[in-house]
């Protein structure tokens, strides 16, 4: 068990986003979190990644207990994420964006970098090579030097995945990676997500609306509704769970 969330509750002012949610994620697993809009999926992700601090409950990540995490600490621990609406650095090229993902791993201080010759240059070259492997892996060699702002939606999503991978994360949080994509782009992204899990062994926590995708690629699924966990299990168990069907078909509570 790489991660376990125990009775987490989160509220903004009066609004209770998450109520007493507990679930766990196994090592190298593809864990999906699904639920109708406003069920608290993104909030959950933001708790895991330290952007929001839950009022109640704890998070256990690799045997370390956290009341709450700050995002900087989460990144250092090896939790990387992508955002629902793309959060790339518009002023930089694809290569620079992905290299930023490796900032935590760079050791040289700014004086050495200013001097450039010597350790800083060597370090830059090593990290460049690691990033090139990711670029090769995501098949985006042809847009290496293009400013990110100019790329189509599908490619921007891939670059963001690249940036998250650059940090060599233990756990990767994907916030609706397939939103707004056509059939072909979805297939590509699924392939990449599976390859990441398969090639690098990264644990993946996935939020996604497209049931087809979720059922195909995830090992286990958590279903949230109005901030509460209403189902947890393999895709088949969840698909036939009556509570889930009600939640989605909108039976009144």
């Amino acid at each position: 068990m790489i991660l376990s969330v125990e009775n987490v509750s989160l509220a903004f002012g009066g609004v209770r986003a998450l109520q007493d949610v507990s679930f766990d994620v196994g090592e190298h697993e593809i864990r999906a979190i699904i639920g109708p809009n406003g069920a608290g999926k993104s909030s959950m992700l933001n708790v895991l990644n330290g952007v929001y601090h839950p009022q109640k409950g704890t998070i256990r990540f690799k045997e370390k207990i956290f009341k709450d995490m700050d995002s900087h600490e989460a990144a250092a621990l090896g939790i990387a994420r992508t955002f629902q609406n793309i959060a790339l650095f518009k002023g930089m090229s694809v290569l620079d964006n992905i290299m930023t993902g490796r900032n935590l791993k760079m050791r040289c201080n700014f004086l050495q970098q200013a001097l450039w010759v010597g350790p800083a240059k060597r370090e830059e070259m090593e990290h460049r090579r690691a990033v090139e492997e990711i670029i090769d892996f995501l098949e985006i060699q042809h847009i290496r030097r293009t400013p990110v702002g100019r790329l189509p939606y599908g490619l921007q999503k891939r670059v963001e995945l690249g940036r998250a991978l650059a940090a060599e994360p233990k756990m990767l949080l994907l916030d609706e990676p397939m939103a707004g994509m056509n059939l072909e782009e979805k297939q590509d992204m699924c392939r990449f997500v599976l390859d990441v899990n398969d090639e690098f062994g990264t644990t993946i926590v996935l939020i996604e609306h497209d049931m087809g995708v979720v059922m195909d690629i995830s090992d286990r699924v958590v279903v949230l509704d109005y901030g509460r966990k209403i189902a947890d299990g393999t895709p088949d168990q969840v698909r036939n769970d009556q509570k889930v069907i009600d939640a989605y078909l909108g039976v009144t509570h």
Partner: protein
Amino acid sequence: MPIEVIFFIEVLAGGLLAGVMYALVALGFVLIYKASGVFNFAQGAMVFFAALTFVSLVERGWNFWLALVVTLAVMVVLGLVTERVVLRPLVNQPQITLFMATIGLTFVLEGLSQLIWGSQPHGLELGIPDVPMEWLSQRWNINISQFDLFAAFVAGLLVAVLAVFFQKTRIGRALRAVADDHQAALAVGIPLQHIWAIVWAVAGFVALVAGLMWGVRNGVQFALTFVALKALPVLLIGGFESIPGAIIGGLIIGATEKLAEVYVGPFFGGGIESWFAYVVALLFLLVRPEGLFGEKHIDRV
């Protein structure tokens, strides 16, 4: 009443009245920011331009009221031209770009005003003597200049008019809608360009009033543009979107500045009014980044 207390009241009153003057200028900033989300750094230059135009016309023998109306017309035209040439092409640019554009505008206005009217300072006389009010000084021999009170009165009047204008009239409501979200306002059919033109014209009028008040106080000369720098701390405290905020902010800055000048200044060797207002504003900002009345910004991930 002991001499120190009288002296303190005088200094406080002087400070408050100076604060009113700051508020007047700050009002121009708030107006434009409220309606177009643009922090118009050139408001100071507009104040100077308005004062200079008015004074030059009066010196050329124009009747007081005629000069006033013509200057107002000139300011309205200036507002329209600015909106058309500078702001419309930059409509959805980030705020920093618009801010820098207004700095550019400041320099254009400064150059223009001195080119047309020359750059020697002018005295300005509004027919109100800068002499202490008699009954006040007899009763408690506190001498507060008549003119300051008059200025305070004008400012109060202006604020009331603007408050009513914003809250009650149809255009006022449209202005507030535009301030919140340009696209949304456009969506419901508010003629954005039209509204901005009005806003800039009103801001021109406020600049004129401020220019007159400041002109009488310090004379109409180039230094007037730096009055904008004085308005900044006021806005920081009062918040950029609220008119009452601008007035109260002005009073706070005016009072603290004067008091500090008199009581604290000597320890630092005097002349601290140039930076003291900023320090006050900064302290305020660190506590409440969006100022007294401003809304809280929430950054969504």
